[in-house]
């Protein structure tokens, strides 16, 4: 059943040697790029916009629009950058690693086309430092692309030139936030910058920069090659295309699944991932990772898509689907989540530095009562309003939703 769904990011999963450009080319690789180089950047952006593709890194911002803003920003000496966010640090998320480990040329092809749309001269793939296999694969793929004329001067004889390099993270979740990532790429401590300006206007070294997630880039070649009409046939009204879902917990076949947007949780877990492991009963899920939302079994038939989840106060986030069962200790899980935010807070602003610690201290208290719940929710809301960057706003959703659905377990 799983195989009958269309595949984009994982179309070559397990079918090719990820280190071989010959394998990649023989299996449809670079068709999108070659077509793109014969088109005008504007027409490609137009097509990406019409496709409805939204960013897969968690925030779901329309990709074509971001390309348009970035290419329209005035840039000194016409220098623009493309940066791939491969920092994948959201707990429960392991999809970008799959792409980089199984089809690195796909990411690079998507980046070159995106670079061409904004006429970028240089790009970076910022990979988290612990992803050794991904780092080796991408490094190798970049080297081969230079040798074969897909990177560097005059790509495929088109007259367009683009340089690509890797950059490494070093164990900071906050550096996955796009502006913090750029600070880190500039060799600094990972402290967030104030937004606006957005990277599209002032990004790397102060110049217009297009930042997208690995999965997002992996969709670009398909859209260019097959056309936006073909792409937007997949998915729902407000969420086009496929999505990588990272299933974890006590489920029979955990792992990454590429499925059309709009699949339900019931289909994902029970039809595709083999249902619950013996001895475990489905109770709910944490969607989108530590910064995501808890849901209960009333969500089993809700389509997993941006708009349908939003309507019910939930989020898809990065695509993490952490399944909770009857034996899960939700209190322990919340302690772990709040300990995570406490650990990853950079300490630059008071509401988040103190707030993450206070929340962590409170959740550890045995037998939380209504006053505690109220206090925690008020504290988290206060942090939403007063924190400098989105990390300080993140504890709000998991706290509110865990109280909503599972407060008796705390």
């Amino acid at each position: 059943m799983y195989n009958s769904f269309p595949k984009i990011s994982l179309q070559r999963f397990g079918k090719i040697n990820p280190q071989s450009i010959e394998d990649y080319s023989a299996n449809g690789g670079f068709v999108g790029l070659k077509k793109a180089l014969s088109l005008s950047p504007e027409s490609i952006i137009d097509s990406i916009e019409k496709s409805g593709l939204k960013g897969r890194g968690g925030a779901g911002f329309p990709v074509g629009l971001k390309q348009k803003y970035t290419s329209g920003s005035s840039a000194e000496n016409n220098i623009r950058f493309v940066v791939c966010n491969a920092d994948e640090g959201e707990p429960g998320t392991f999809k970008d690693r799959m792409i980089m480990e199984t089809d690195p040329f796909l990411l690079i092809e998507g980046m070159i086309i995106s670079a061409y749309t904004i006429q970028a001269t240089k790009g970076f793939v910022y990979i988290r430092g612990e992803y050794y296999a991904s780092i080796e694969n991408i490094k190798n793929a970049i080297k081969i692309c230079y040798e074969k004329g897909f990177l560097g001067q005059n790509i495929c004889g088109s007259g367009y030139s683009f340089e690509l390099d890797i950059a490494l993270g070093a164990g900071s979740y906050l550096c996955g936030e796009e502006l913090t990532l750029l600070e880190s790429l500039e060799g600094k401590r990972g402290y967030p910058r104030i937004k606006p300006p957005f990277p599209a206007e002032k990004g790397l070294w102060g110049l217009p920069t297009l930042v997208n997630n690995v999965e997002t880039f992996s969709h670009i070649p398909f859209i260019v090659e097959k056309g936006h009409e073909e792409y937007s046939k997949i998915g729902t009204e407000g969420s086009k295309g496929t999505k990588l879902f990272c299933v974890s917990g006590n489920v029979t076949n955990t792992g990454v699944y590429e499925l059309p947007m709009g699949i339900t949780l019931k289909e994902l877990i029970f039809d595709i991932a083999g249902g619950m492991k013996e001895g475990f009963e489905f109770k709910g899920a944490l969607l989108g990772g530590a910064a995501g939302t808890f849901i209960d079994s009333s969500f089993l038939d809700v389509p997993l898509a941006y708009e349908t989840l939003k309507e019910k106060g939930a989020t898809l986030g990065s695509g993490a689907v952490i399944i909770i069962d009857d034996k899960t200790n939700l209190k322990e899980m919340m302690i772990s989540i709040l300990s995570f935010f406490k650990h990853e807070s950079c300490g630059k602003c008071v509401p988040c530095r103190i707030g993450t610690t206070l929340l962590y201290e409170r959740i550890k208290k045995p037998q939380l009562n209504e006053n505690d719940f109220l206090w925690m929710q008020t504290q988290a809301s206060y942090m939403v309003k007063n924190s400098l960057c989105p990390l300080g706003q993140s504890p709000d959703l998991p706290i509110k939703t865990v109280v909503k659905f599972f407060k008796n377990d705390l």
Partner: protein
Amino acid sequence: MQKELNKEQIISILQKYSPTKDNILKCLHELQDAHPQNYISKVILEETAKHFKLTKGQIFGIVSYYSMFSLKPRGRYLVRLCKSPVCNMLGAKSVTEYFDSKFNLKPGETTTDGMFTLELAECLGRCGKGPSMMINREVVTELDSKKIDEIINTKK
């Protein structure tokens, strides 16, 4: 066995990188990996600062921010155990306790023979098969006492 990464070795690594700032983290990773004690030594700080034309304090500031870098010597093998929510749900705590009871190794500590350092880490992107850990560059998933014994014994 070599205990230090000497100045010549450090400089030869640094020289592979042009002194543009986007290379700092990459350089520090390579230097730390090359150090037999898995850390950023004083000499590394000094030479890296010179190479990038920054002060030692600036490099120190960068190193101390990122959790993958250490300013203290560590064991030949660095064990990073995930403690994030999924691995936590799947039993990461009992894995931590096992390291303590069997190898007398607590998070943040190094074995007396200098072979192993245990650290707790946040999500390692292996949640599908938790509890997970890394031992240097190697990933080990679905941890239980048997798997831990096996992997530790091969390194001894």
